[in-house]
């Protein structure tokens, strides 16, 4: 039985070492920097989307530091990799807040990762900036949502397709990957379409599993459905499945002029892996497009290209910007302004100072953080895919739209307050 003892010895030893190591860690926190956490997956399935958000956040930190930092202190990024693993997101969030003592965290992409870290931020009173369009139905005091809520992306897009200019679609295919964002968006859209007099028989809702790659049947079904009248497809297909879907569309000869597809998760970065010539005319709805012409955007694109080159990022030869990157960029700059206004990095003071912050965004508008609901006011742009993988903006809202995190098209939401309702964490 001698062998077994060794194990336990090792076990005890490592535990003791761990205990010794962890107790001494907090002693070094007194330096002249402000730590900020970056919580984006750098490996696993979400790395494809999230890596650039890490890079753009680091670029913003570099820029802020070069201009003298915040409150006279330099920002010190703490980058961790939650590896597309949802429990690990929660663990890393806790680590960033309690061990590294960061003032703020920029991170998350998927809804489930946000849901995973949310209780941690609420428990520890941390601050999270979430830069991706999402399904709404959530409002936390500890989170600022710099991406679009459904009424800032989905509904304007559908309104456009209903208009004469957008093709006056009468029938709708709501196609998505089977998870919460598509389900919620489609639920909201269905209610919205009902309110516009579209009947259920003219709406076809379809879902595919994650990573689905065979869209033959679906495209054939869309074709069949579209024979019954002017049809548009609203796609909430997630990341990787988009390429096979678009390739199948092109190959089966379904052109944008017959059945336009508007997507909410397809941007410049997603089109990088696609031969876009057959896709010309399909649409995307975002709050920012790389092809926008304004001085802020031109400067930002140039800065990003230079940064990508300097840091030897992959794809530096063809640097692209997209909507979540813009949202991340706005987020960190607004946080900086709020800290300077509050003269403190204290979570509650920064939250108070965030209300009404404005920032000149690359999308050409002056982006404003709502006084109450923790979401940005955003303009909505509809772009058509061009042959070079960029978008041609064909429509835009008159001005920025206020976010409705609680969609009025979901029953019961009319009673919800348009601000975090001061729910406290139960600790007693």
């Amino acid at each position: 039985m001698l062998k077994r003892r060794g194990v336990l010895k090792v076990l005890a030893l490592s535990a003791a070492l761990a205990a010794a190591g962890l107790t001494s860690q907090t002693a070094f926190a007194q330096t002249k920097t402000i730590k900020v956490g970056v919580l984006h997956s750098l490996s696993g399935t979400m790395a494809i989307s999230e890596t650039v958000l890490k890079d753009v956040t680091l670029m913003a930190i570099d820029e802020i530091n070069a201009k003298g930092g915040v409150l006279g202190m330099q920002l010190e990024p703490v980058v961790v990799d939650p590896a597309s693993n949802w429990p690990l997101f929660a663990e890393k969030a806790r680590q960033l807040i309690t061990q590294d003592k960061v003032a703020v965290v920029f991170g998350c992409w998927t809804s489930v990762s946000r849901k995973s870290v949310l209780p941690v931020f609420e428990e520890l009173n941390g601050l999270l900036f979430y830069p991706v369009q999402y399904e709404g139905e959530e409002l936390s005091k500890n989170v600022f949502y710099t991406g679009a809520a459904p009424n800032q992306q989905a509904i304007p897009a559908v309104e456009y397709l209903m208009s004469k200019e957008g093709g006056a679609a009468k029938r709708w295919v709501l196609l998505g990957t089977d998870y919460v964002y598509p389900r919620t968006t489609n639920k909201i859209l269905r209610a919205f379409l009902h309110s516009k007099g579209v009947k259920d028989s003219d709406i076809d809702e379809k879902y595919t599993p994650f990573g689905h790659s065979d869209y033959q049947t679906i495209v054939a079904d869309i074709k069949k459905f579209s024979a019954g009248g002017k049809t548009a497809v609203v796609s909430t297909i997630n990341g990787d499945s988009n390429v096979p879907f678009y390739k199948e569309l092109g190959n089966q000869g379904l052109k944008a002029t017959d059945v336009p597809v508007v997507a909410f998760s397809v941007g410049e970065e997603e089109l990088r892996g696609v031969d876009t010539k057959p896709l010309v005319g399909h649409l995307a709805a975002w709050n920012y497009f790389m092809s926008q012409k304004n001085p802020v955007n031109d400067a930002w694109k140039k800065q990003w290209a230079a940064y990508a080159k300097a840091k030897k990022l992959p794809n530096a030869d063809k640097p692209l910007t997209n909507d979540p990157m813009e949202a991340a960029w706005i987020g960190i700059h607004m946080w900086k302004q709020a800290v300077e206004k509050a003269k403190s990095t204290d979570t509650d003071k920064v939250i108070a100072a965030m209300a009404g912050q404005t920032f000149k965004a690359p999308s050409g508008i002056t982006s404003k953080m709502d006084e109450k609901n923790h979401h940005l006011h955003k303009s909505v742009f509809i772009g058509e895919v061009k042959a070079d993988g960029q978008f041609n903006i064909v429509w835009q809202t008159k001005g920025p739209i206020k976010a409705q995190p609680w969609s009025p098209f979901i029953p019961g939401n009319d009673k919800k307050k348009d601000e975090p309702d001061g729910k406290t964490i139960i600790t007693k």
Partner: protein
Amino acid sequence: MTSARLYGPKGWALLGAFAAFVFVVMPIFNLYVPQESSFHMSTYWVTLLGKILCYAIVAVAMDLVWGYAGILSLGHGLFFALGGYAFGMYLMRQIGSDGQYRQPMPDFMVFLDWKEFPWHWWNSDSFWWCAMLAVVVPGLLAYVFGYFAFRSRVKGVYFSIITQALTFAAMLAFFRNAMGFGGNNGFTDFRRILDIPIATPQMRMILCATSALLLIGVLLLGRWLVTSKFGRVLAAIRDAEARVMFCGYDTMYYKLFVWTLSAVICGIAGALYVPQVGIINPSEMSPANSIEIAIWVAVGGRGSLAGAALGAGLVNGAKSFFTQNYPEYWLFFLGAIFIAITLFLPQGVLGLVNRFRKS
């Protein structure tokens, strides 16, 4: 035949030291040393240790079937997740009206416009009922699956592949909202157990200590099992099943027993895991997660229960370390471990330690 001792004196001493550390040292440094003190142990480490202890329990369960009975399961994540979901139902009910919608039903049901609970949520507000489900559901599934598989003498790689198919199918099913388990988002935002808030250092300490207690219990139970006659028959099945059958043993029931037991242990570990990490979602059932469980066992040392537990600790410790310090190299490192262990250390780290001790 002497009944083999569970552990030697040193083994007991180490186990005792571990228990003392978790049950005495940690609570003191975590709860009673003030936060400002540099000797304070942060709750972060408590939850991290609690999580790793749950993984260690799963590794021990895996080792029982793989190390001792030679059955490589690539679907143990499923049993773990089922236990987690079963107990998660209770945790969801305990949120009460504190969810985003401030309604008594879980948020995702409110959102789906469900007016009443689906049938499988029956009695889910009872702690004991859900605790029982966390044991019975994985056990029952394992029993039924194992019964048919072992009866048809599906073994070796075939068995591994169909367990993988099983967990993959379950993952796809749980992704569906219609299943009534919250779809891709799964269960989150837990607040209480037995009406006591979770987000307190005390509760986290209790959960961590419970995990440690379970790990010790499972180690003892497993040890007792594998040193008994039953354990020797299992090892014989692993090494030459046909000969054991020719000796007149009905190998199927031996395998079925240890397989079901292993699933039950995983289920309990899952139930303890969920309140500590704060989320359960279908990705726990992804085939990759289940393969990772096998690597914990291989790293620690197949055929040694304590080794399996150690392996879970080492790999997850390395994961936490690498994903913080060298995110790009984590997969290189993990992959290299897989290869190195199988090529050079078939007995795992423990085998290496023993080799040094001998020489």
